[in-house]
């Protein structure tokens, strides 16, 4: 006893201090390693992509000609916007509806938990499998023609659905129960509580989740490959084949021509800027809202 007291606190031995230092340095090093790819990708995107950007790059369709002017990416930009917009129109209302069921009615019932489980299952399904599914169900069976933009939207919507459900569920759960109870005590029927109290309170969070889902869908290639297919010209007809940015990039990467790879960089930069803008807007809305998930 007295011996310990006399000795007091022993300083950390050199060996332990060294191993601490080494371990912490390794952790820091690995963290830096994680950031390197992002910096490298952004650097190359800006370096190669900005070189491809010009007014005509955004205002002309790809020509598909092997020699001469390869054209721009107008049809790809329009196609991505149209198809993602349609996909959101499908996925967001259904997703929010399912989330409302889970939070307001289903709660911890067996059915609700089963639905939750399968929504999680959907999150893990590879996007290429969703594309394959829509291909089997809508393209092979020739429902209103073969490849069509709206079928691509359906595939994207399937991809977005679980993301929307999960994020909306989290936000709806954050709506204080006291608000619901106050409205119910004042005599409001259930549906009015949902429409007038729960949804408006949760709105910013739902918008954030939906925007993140949209950002994810906009960058997906595999589901569109089998459903909307590739085409050069731009059109707003959702029943026809439609070009999209990811598919344009995928097509150009495979070409052995530098000019086409250059166009791929330009299109990639456009896509990344769009996706990052959506992400940024989503985060800003999230920060504004009081119910931050």
């Amino acid at each position, binding site marked *: 006893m007295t011996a310990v007291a006399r000795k007091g606190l022993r300083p950390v031995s050199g060996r332990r201090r060294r191993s601490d230092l080494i371990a912490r340095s390794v952790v820091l090093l690995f*963290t830096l390693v994680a950031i390197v790819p992002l910096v*490298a990708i952004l650097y190359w995107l800006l370096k190669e992509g900005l070189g491809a950007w010009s007014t005509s790059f955004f205002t002309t369709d790809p020509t598909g000609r092997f020699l001469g002017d390869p054209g721009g990416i107008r049809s790809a930009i329009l196609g991505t916007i149209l198809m993602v917009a349609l996909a959101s129109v499908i996925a967001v209302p259904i997703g929010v509806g399912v989330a409302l069921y889970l939070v307001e009615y289903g709660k911890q019932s067996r059915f609700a938990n089963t639905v939750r489980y399968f929504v999680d299952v959907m999150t893990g399904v590879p996007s290429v499998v969703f594309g394959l599914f829509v291909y089997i169900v809508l393209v092979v069976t020739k429902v209103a023609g073969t490849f069509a933009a709206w079928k691509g939207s359906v595939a994207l919507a399937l991809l977005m659905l679980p993301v929307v459900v999960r994020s909306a569920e989290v936000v709806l759960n954050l709506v204080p129960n006291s608000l619901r109870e106050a409205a119910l005590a004042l005599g409001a029927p259930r549906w009015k509580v949902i429409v007038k109290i729960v949804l408006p309170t949760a709105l910013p969070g739902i918008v954030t989740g939906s925007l993140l889902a949209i950002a994810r869908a906009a960058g997906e290639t595999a589901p569109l490959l089998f459903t909307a297919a590739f085409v050069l010209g731009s059109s707003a007809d959702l029943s026809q084949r439609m070009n999209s940015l990811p598919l344009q990039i995928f097509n150009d990467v495979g070409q052995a021509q530098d000019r086409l790879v250059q166009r791929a960089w330009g299109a990639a930069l456009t896509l990344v800027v769009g996706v990052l803008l959506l992400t940024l807007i989503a985060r800003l809305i999230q920060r504004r809202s009081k119910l931050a998930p």
Partner: protein
Amino acid sequence: MEAGSLTPRATVRGGRSIHERSPRSRAIDPLLKWFLSGLAALILVLIAFFFIRLFIEAKPAFDKFGYLGFVFDNSWVPSQTLYGALPLVVGTVITSAIALLIGVPVAIATALYITELAPNRVRAPLTITVELLAAVPSVVYGLWGIAVLAPKLQPAEQWFSDTFSFLPLVGGQVSIPNYFIAGLILAIMIVPIVSAISREVMSTVPSDHKEAALALGATRWEMIKMAVLPYSRAGISGAAMLGLGRAIGETIAVTIVIGNAADIGNTIFSQGYTLAAVIANEFGEAASDPIHRAALIAAGLVLFVLTLIVNAIARYYVNRASRPASVPKGMAG
């Protein structure tokens, strides 16, 4: 004084009290409930339909080659209508293994740094930076991988291949698109998700445990080793499994950088193929050939089942980690 004056018997049409809701207003409630329940049921129906349709369409391939024959035959030669998916399965396994080996340590280190070591000022920007990696579309990773990373790394890979040729799966000529590059790209792609979930788990480590370790004189690293890592082991395993699920299913980036050769490569620097890549790459030729199409759909089904299993295991671990019951008896409270 009379009770009647306190509760006036005011009625509207139909003789019902004004305190009662109109029949229409009352009808909306069950309607909404049934509508929303229907939407939820739709998800279940959709997944059942999804699985059944995939299975029916893949059936011709399974009938022809057998279930095990399809998965374990080493011959994917569409021109001879031979569809044995072993080269694809092996490719998926090799690339995912490389992705985990490289990605998981980096992701865990990032999570540890952000939660335990980083100065407060750095924390938020670092978190956002790592999350930005998740926002980059996979086709852009593919483009960067094949146009920048693969050619730049080729000399280094060749040196490694020559120097360490005594190791298994290393040696020989390095081709520009190869398993390793695909695995490396996948590693970069799974870092954000593995790191985010690890971070979440690590932030649930009770500060009592950490402070106890520090109070006993542990260094920061000893505190991490004794308090943080043991507590969050299940969650980190789950995070790694979720990363694995991502890596298995990733399609476009891999299709671009793996070379799409339907033979099992001799080394990790040979060209290869994965289950997901074969679908994206060959579906165009398969459109007119029913058995080829069935084989690709069968590959998709195998992929689907694989990700299902991996994700189920992942969910088991993550749920176990997030439940407070996972704290060993005697350590709780």
